[in-house]
């Protein structure tokens, strides 16, 4: 009988040839092969395609950058005020809070009324002083001082906001030692002013000086290539505002007012440091006699704890660019060395202060622009200061007086002020 059952077959002994170890190229090939068929790789491809589609269509292309919702920061308010000027200003003062504060406080004294610095940047006191020292001079003077502003921010203002309709005749750069070497910033591109003003211009050409360390530079390049990163803030703002509007009717009658919205004196005192400010937070009142001195020594010392050469060298490049930008736009730039209090100067290493002054002198000579050293005048004493660095109304009056007298007397600025034409070439 034939059996249909399969016969048991003895296993055949085969000699397996020794497999050579896979080469690096083979391993690399297998890695590519596997990742190409992976869901994660397919997802990456989808992201790339979506990104490409958005780069090509650019939904934000025709949107006015200033119409996008944003944090209402100091620079935002000031930009709004500046862009709403009906005519090109005569003089724009650029600088940090050292300038902003004192000039604004003096403004209240001059006008004998409350002045809200958040929404009122015009400096009528400087306008009146210019008229006094230079009869016939007209035009708006604008205080563009910003808390924490660096020279790089001044450059961005000059580049983005000094356009055809808003080119001043004279720009006065009021610079204290901090403005070129602040130790609390990692790079020029890290300030809120810089980040806000970036929306008005393509900053590719500034990459190397705006982002001096590796990661911010990589981040900038990512923004260039990845639409989602580039438009991140725009998208967040738009979606945030839409969500708020959609929820408002839902919350009617359900939610109550928050005490967080009521600004305390403490909030107002430290509004400088806030990323977002609102109208009324910083109101200067006239005839306020105060002998109070805020001890910000710790912060002051921290700012000058080291010479921060790297930042200084970088900001010097920005100063060059600012002066060149102003000249190119037909603006007369004026450099002012801001006063420092007796107490404050003690904590600035002498070589650091000398470096600051020497640089201003050097730049003034290089660009043939006027230079005023307020410290040489010897007019400032501790009564003019409300802390180690910031001046109060009396300091503001003195600084504006010095600037006005100088602008009226220097031939380069004098001719521009009495020139009937608007700013620019």
């Amino acid at each position, binding site marked *: 009988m034939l059996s249909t059952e399969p016969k048991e077959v003895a296993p055949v002994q085969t000699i397996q040839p020794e497999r050579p170890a896979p080469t690096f190229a083979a391993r690399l090939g297998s890695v590519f092969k596997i990742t190409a068929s992976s869901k*994660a790789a397919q*997802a*990456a491809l989808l992201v790339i395609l979506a990104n490409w589609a958005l780069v090509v269509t650019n939904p934000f292309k025709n949107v006015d950058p200033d119409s996008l919702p944003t944090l209402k920061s100091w620079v935002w308010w000031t930009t709004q005020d500046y862009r709403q000027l009906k005519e090109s200003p005569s003089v724009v003062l650029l600088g940090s809070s050292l300038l902003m504060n004192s000039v604004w406080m003096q403004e209240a004294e001059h006008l004998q009324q409350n002045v809200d610095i958040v929404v009122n940047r015009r400096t009528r006191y400087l306008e009146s002083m210019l008229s006094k020292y230079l009869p016939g001079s007209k035009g708006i003077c604008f205080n563009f001082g910003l808390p924490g502003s660096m020279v790089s921010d001044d450059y961005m203002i000059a580049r983005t906001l000094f356009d055809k309709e808003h080119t001043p005749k004279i720009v006065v750069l009021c610079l204290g030692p901090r403005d070129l070497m602040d130790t609390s910033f990692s790079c020029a591109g890290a300030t809120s002013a810089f980040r806000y003003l970036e929306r008005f211009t393509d900053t590719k050409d500034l990459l190397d000086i705006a982002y001096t360390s590796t990661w911010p530079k990589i981040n900038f390049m990512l923004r260039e290539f990845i639409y989602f990163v580039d438009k991140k803030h725009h998208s967040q703002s738009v979606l945030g505002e839409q*969500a*708020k509007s959609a929820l408002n009717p839902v919350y009617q009658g359900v939610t109550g007012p928050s005490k967080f919205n009521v600004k305390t004196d403490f909030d107002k005192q430290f509004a400088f440091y806030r990323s977002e400010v609102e109208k009324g937070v910083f109101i200067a009142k006239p005839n306020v006699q105060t002998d109070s001195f805020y001890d910000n020594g710790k912060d002051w010392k921290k700012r000058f704890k080291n010479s921060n050469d790297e930042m200084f060298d970088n900001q010097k490049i920005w100063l060059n660019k600012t002066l060149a930008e102003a000249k190119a736009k037909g603006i007369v730039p004026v450099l002012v060395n801001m006063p420092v209090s007796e107490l404050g100067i003690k904590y600035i290493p002498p070589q650091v202060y000398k470096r600051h002054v020497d640089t201003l002198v050097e730049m003034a000579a290089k660009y043939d622009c006027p230079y005023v050293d307020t410290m040489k005048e010897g007019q400032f004493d501790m009564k003019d200061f409300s802390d180690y660095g910031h001046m109060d109304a009396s300091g503001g009056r003195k600084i504006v007086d010095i600037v006005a007298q100088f602008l009226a007397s220097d031939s380069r600025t004098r001719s521009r002020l009495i020139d009937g034409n608007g700013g620019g070439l």
Partner: protein
Amino acid sequence: MLFNSAAYLVFLPIVVAIYWLIPFKYRTAFLLVASYFFYMTWKPIYIVLIVALTAFNYFAGIIIEKEKVRRKLYLIGALVANIATLAYFKYAYFAIDSANGVLAIAGRKISYPLHDIILPLGISFFVFEFIHYLVDVYKGSPAVKAPLEFALFPSFFPTQIAGPIKRFQDFVPQLHLPAKINLKDIDEGVELILWGLFKKVIVADSLAIVIDKCMPHPEMLTTIDCWMLLWAFAIQVYFDFSGYTDIARGSAALLGFKVPLNFDLPFLAGSITEYWRRWHISLSLWLRDYLFFPLGGSKHGTLATIRNVMITFTIAGLWHGAGLNYIIFGAMHGLWLNCNRVWRLIVDKSPALTTLTETKIFHVFGVLLTFNALAVTLVTFRLPNLELSGRYFQKLLVLTPEAASNPISLTIPSIEGAANFALFPVFLLAIVIGHLISNQLRGKTAPGILPLPKSMQILKPAYLAALAILLLLFAPDGTPSFVYFQF
């Protein structure tokens, strides 16, 4: 280098690529170098600490294994050395400060100098892994002989800074598997990383903006605000830490490793006991095995058990940070656990109560009670001092006339500024719904992996792409740290 930093997003793919491209025999050494590099990106000098502790524990393990007579003495010595190191970095400042306070109260003019001691990242986690190693070797597990393998155990970068706390019996054998790159692991790894980042960046960090602004100011809040903030903080900590764990698991998966699960929907636990089985699982198991059991566990009667639970959780509180607020946090958990234990004893003796506790409605009640009980413990955990915590509790429990005047008016959504405030209640509601959906899907896949039926797998790439795009759009400008990094 934080998991949510751009640096990590560069570091990880490079390490993964090199790891799979080099021959198997070099992989452990390579991972060790990568892990030490990862650690050194924070404070290079502290590499000395992790290397010294590793060397010490390596030899201690071998000696304990070989020694027949004085092995207990060696074990105690090694444990003391580990605990003393941890205590120095974590508690010296607190101890000296407290001693100075006591001396001042006693009228003594002596005061011990205080020096800033920077807590090395991850020290609590790797010291706990060393303690587990030494105790287990003492109990009979074979010591790890290969020095590189032993060194990689505590320093393995995905789990180095905030766990999960591994067991060497699980981890070291994985180094011997001649693992080949596996598509499923890669896909799971990427999904876990994206999901973990989503939890951290989109959920935890968004809630943190509201919590950081509001919680320290109870005087500005109503009672309902205070409760909602506490719920939100519980969720923030959970999403922050479980997000970190998912990224750790995902990073390990890309290298072919499995690390322990740490979370299993803890906020859906029906009791505080169950909560600790679902929350920071690797820590609870460690506390059980190396603290609660050695204290006697639950073998010596109810009172001894209650004592042991209180000791274990008070120490767990202290582990979270040197301060009375953390001790109170731990003690409150101990108290809740003991209340639950006593309740269980009562229920077990009553058939009627047993029936009641098995109903669905009671389970829902249990979930709500448990969540709120643990939320209350977070007051001292979050706020920096007891005075502030006291004021927060007053508002929370409507103990002041001002709080009683308008307890249910919700004011947080009215706060001007970022949309996070307006979206706050919506966010909390979305998270509750998300939890209920997650509960339905529980057990269908590993936590953090979206379970999709085979026919719908085609949607997985779209899901992953959506996660990536959301992260790109909503990632903060800075790199906020993870809550558990401070421990």
